[in-house]
């Protein structure tokens, strides 16, 4: 029997540069659920996503992911798309994607270019792309290799309306296939969220 995915966080607290960013944060997400991370600037949205991605070591609390692939930790089962987009400007769109597909252990997949409509740009160097196109390239990483948990840090920045709809569709598909998505955002993503994680005091 396949155990459905379940991400459980208990009493998370996060420290950055000796300052406590948030504490006693708990939430519980199951397969197919989308969580929206809200709060004013500097309240720890990115820090929480990095903590979930295993990129913040100075934190405490309990995090567990049930029902994923065996012998893999939370970070290995997550996609993290942050503000730094991990694109190499000197390489072409194709080279960037092929590298990440190999590195992340994705299957050879011809539609990865079409995921965010990058077919026409495949052989352009990334340094020639606009900010929105670079963001689409970074988001394409979501589909080049499968990861059950998506951690998105303001994924809509720089995206035009058409791309925003594509992103929504990808999130919907991922949720339908039993994935979990957590996104920090200020804009409306247009995806129905199971829970809202509100960080900090509403000013």
């Amino acid at each position, binding site marked *: 029997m396949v155990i459905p995915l379940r991400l459980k966080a208990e009493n998370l607290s996060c420290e*950055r540069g000796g300052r406590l960013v948030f504490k006693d944060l708990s939430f519980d997400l199951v397969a197919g659920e989308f969580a929206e991370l809200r709060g004013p600037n500097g309240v720890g949205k990115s820090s929480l996503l*990095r903590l979930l*991605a*295993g*990129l*913040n*070591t*100075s934190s405490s609390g309990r995090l567990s992911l049930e029902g994923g692939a065996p012998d*893999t930790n939370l*970070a*290995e089962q*997550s996609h*993290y798309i*942050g*503000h*730094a*987009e*991990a*694109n*190499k400007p*000197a*390489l072409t769109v194709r*080279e960037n994607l092929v*590298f*990440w597909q*190999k*590195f*992340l*252990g994705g299957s050879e997949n011809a539609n990865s270019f079409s995921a965010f409509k990058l077919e026409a740009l495949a052989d352009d160097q990334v340094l020639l792309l606009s900010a929105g196109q670079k963001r689409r390239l970074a988001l394409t*990483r979501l589909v080049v290799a499968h990861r059950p948990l998506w951690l998105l840090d303001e994924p809509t920045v720089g995206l035009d309306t058409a791309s925003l709809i594509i992103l929504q569709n990808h999130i919907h598909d991922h949720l339908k296939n039993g994935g979990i998505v957590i996104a920090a955002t200020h804009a409306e993503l247009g995806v129905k969220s199971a829970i809202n994680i509100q960080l900090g005091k509403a000013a």
Partner: protein
Amino acid sequence: MFQQALALTTRDVALARRQGGGLGAAFGFILSVMVLIPLAIGPDQILLSKLAPGLMWLALLLSVLLTADRMFQQDFEDGSLDVMAMAKLPLEIVTLAKVLAHWFTVSLPLAIITPPLGLLMSIDVGQLPILLVSMVIGSLALSLLAAVGGAVTAGLRRGGLLVSLLVLPLYIPVLIFGVAASSANLSPSSSTPALTVLCAITLMSLVISPWACAAALKAYLR
């Protein structure tokens, strides 16, 4: 795991080819040192050929050092390191893959180019093979040790000087035994002990450096 590491090495080699910079600047450095030294020391050919192996090693070592601070900086700044740190591939293997790319694109070409340049210092042609062998072996250690400095300063804007201060002490054994191997007199057997120690240093760096780099890079992830 091997495929992922290979993909990373291939990408870094492609990046180095596309961006240039590293090798070109380092080669320019070696070339100018080699051209200037005979002018500085004077036309005494015997003195020059005696000093040549040591000065050539010094030039190679410093030129590799010039490229050290860029080894992890870009990956750190553009977020690639975050994604790599999350992957199943251990960060030690990630650094090793990157060091190998650095060796292929910077240290190894320099180690091959440097011995012939020794002719500018009227070095004996018979000494070139042993110089080449010792430099090729030592260059891997140079890349590995430079990576430690590069990893420690990955998040610093102007880490160049700090890298030199950190890495130069680690380079001392490579320098001593590299020079000993290549300036031993012309019979091949006399350079064997120093060459063996040089191999040992390289192998030891191969074990310790990825681990040290990974530890340094992990400290930056927060």
